């Protein structure tokens, strides 16, 4: 008996997460039905949705639920933990896809019933279950002990499936995609502007931040003057900083009439990129300095003693060895910028933030969702990209993963 008991372990957090997902699904609305764009909707639970969806969907969801349950039991058996976690990963992908497709199908069917005016949007139950599924998948990935590269690939597959569902029209009945159908041109223009702002900010930050970080490393006394300044910028709320820059740039534009001619003026792209760059500098500069200063002194000293010039030492030894740390700074910088760029819409820089605020001010939540989802996806991509890059950079620097 004692030996049999020892094969069982305490129920892991994964079990609690998946059980939570089922509880949420049972009690919260999966989608909401509204008679038109502006009225608030009425919740529909998973069971109501399944009722209209037909026997095939019911059987499918039931099978997934039973399979998940079996895997959860298996997870409590020590010898099967890894296999069960892997199976749960697969089941979670299919679960997420199935729920999304199911909602989409329900939306298509009911909007034809309602004569095209009705709005069916994803509701609290759906979003919370997605969140719980994300947490559960992260937990399961840890249990499988997969490499960062495979984890990135897993997320890519999840995302590709969802994008596939969107592009084949399976979700066209959902309200956010109806918004998209109406505002397709605006959406892609805003998306392009968003990317444009991010790219400009990243470029400018790197051009300023990398040399600045190196300079601070070489002259540590500079750190005392520069870091308080950069820290101060971080404490200013973004909206306030944008506002401040409008005033400053407008004033500069009056002093130097050439500046507005070059597009540097109080509102629009210039203050947005400027403010975002100011925010981005701290994480980048700090990571460059940290990356360089964590190098063992013996390495730089013997580099010098071998007769490497300062330039050779920097490019051949210091920079490659500091690269993984600098990467982590770049990652923080980029993800922060992707999010903050949304706020830049307030000073007329455009981007997805413009759509988001339009939706907020006209209480069209579907439009907000349409603008926010690409921002989340972009952040996700950035995260996965840097995760893969960091894993690879550890190989370049000849070190095992810490």
């Amino acid at each position: 008996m004692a030996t049999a008991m020892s094969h069982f372990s305490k129920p892991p957090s994964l079990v609690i997460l998946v059980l939570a997902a089922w509880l949420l699904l049972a009690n919260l609305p999966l989608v909401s039905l509204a008679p038109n764009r502006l009225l608030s909707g009425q919740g529909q639970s998973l069971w109501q949705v399944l009722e209209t969806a037909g026997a095939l969907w019911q059987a499918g969801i039931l099978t997934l639920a039973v399979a998940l349950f079996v895997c959860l039991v298996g997870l409590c058996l020590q010898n099967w933990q890894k296999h069960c976690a892997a199976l749960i990963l697969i089941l979670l992908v299919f679960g997420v896809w199935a729920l999304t497709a199911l909602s989409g199908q329900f939306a298509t069917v009911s909007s034809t019933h309602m004569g095209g005016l009705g709005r069916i949007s994803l509701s609290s139950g759906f979003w919370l279950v997605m969140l719980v599924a994300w947490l559960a998948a992260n937990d399961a990935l840890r249990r499988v002990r997969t490499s960062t590269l495979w984890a990135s690939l897993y997320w890519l597959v999840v995302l590709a499936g969802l994008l596939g569902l969107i592009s084949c029209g399976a979700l066209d009945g959902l309200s956010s995609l109806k918004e998209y159908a109406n505002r397709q041109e605006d959406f892609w223009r805003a998306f392009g502007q968003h990317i444009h702002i991010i790219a400009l900010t990243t470029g400018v930050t790197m051009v300023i931040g990398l040399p600045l970080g190196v300079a601070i490393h070489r002259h540590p006394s500079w750190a005392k003057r520069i870091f308080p300044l950069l820290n101060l910028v971080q404490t200013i709320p973004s909206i306030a900083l944008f506002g401040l820059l409008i005033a400053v740039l407008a004033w500069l534009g009056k002093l130097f009439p050439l500046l507005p001619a070059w597009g540097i003026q109080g509102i629009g792209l210039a203050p947005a990129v400027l403010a975002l760059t100011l925010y981005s500098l701290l994480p980048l500069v700090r990571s460059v300095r940290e990356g360089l200063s964590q190098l063992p002194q013996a390495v730089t000293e013997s580099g010098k003693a071998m007769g490497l010039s300062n330039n050779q030492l920097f490019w051949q030894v210091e920079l490659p060895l500091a690269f993984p740390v600098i990467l982590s700074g770049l990652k923080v910088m980029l993800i922060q910028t992707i999010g903050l760029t949304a706020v830049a819409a307030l000073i007329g820089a455009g981007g997805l933030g413009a759509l988001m605020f339009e939706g907020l001010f006209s209480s069209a939540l579907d439009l907000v969702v349409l603008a926010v989802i690409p921002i989340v996806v972009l952040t996700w991509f950035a995260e996965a990209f840097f995760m893969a890059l960091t894993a690879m950079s550890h190989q370049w620097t000849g070190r095992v993963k810490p």
Partner: protein
Amino acid sequence: MIQFDNVSKAYGDRHAVIDLNLSVGQGEFVVLIGPSGSGKSTTLRMINRLVEHDRGRIRFAGREIRDFTPEDLRRRMGYAIQSVGLFPHWTVEKNIGTVPRLLAWPKNKIGARVHELLELLQLPPSEFAKRYPHELSGGQQQRVGVARALAADPEILLMDEPFGALDPVTRILLQRELKRIHALASKTIVMVTHDIDEALFLADRVVLFKDGRLVQDGSPLDILSHPANDFVVDFLGRAELGIKRLGLGSVREFLRAGDQARGQAISVDLSLREALSAFIVQGQAVLPVVNTNGSFAGELHFSDLLQPLQNPPGDRGDPT
């Protein structure tokens, strides 16, 4: 090869090296020794300008070191330190080839040289060339460090406590190897250590420092036989002066003809210090001696150990 004339160096108020006069001849193995903070490391690092001297003149190969650019000077000098400082992102092969690459040697010449050095330091190239530093033991890393210092066949090798961080067995092994390499290539070596036994074993000349000043400069036997003052005696280890002196001679030097001795035979290659131990362990005053190959050589008398040792001409002792 290296000539210090009235050289001084201060860090703020602290005088690290005071009015140093020292010359290192071609092919000499000079060990700088002293308590920590005595100026020995500063002296070493002034040679390749990792530390710039304040006053006086340092010459390398007849020219003042400030006539060279630091890079040119350093590429002509090998450098190995206690913490090794291998480049962690480069393979063993690439690490060793650092200076030859800086000197723009042709690729195949670098490859051949790296293989030669790996062989010399008993790291089979097929096994070690492609490894990264973190895949090596401490002793192996230090071997690679020494190989890297030797790579471009420098005129002089500077070493700052190269074996300080190693376990005693590995340290002795590498000391013997360094001695072998020195005998083989008759390279000029300047080494810093605080281990007096290491200094006595390796050096042609020991230079003793205290508080930034040179206290005594001479062969190991000179220093053991005529310590300049009480500080030197204490540093050498007052109680072991005689034993350490015996450590410098070999059985071969006091070998006598005769085959009357009883007891277990000792080898002609043993140091007199080891022979003394054998006398005591075996409780004999005369012991039989055999050659390296095991053939009979003669005998050693305990009373002969009381005679003064002679400074050997040039090469001293046997590395094995």
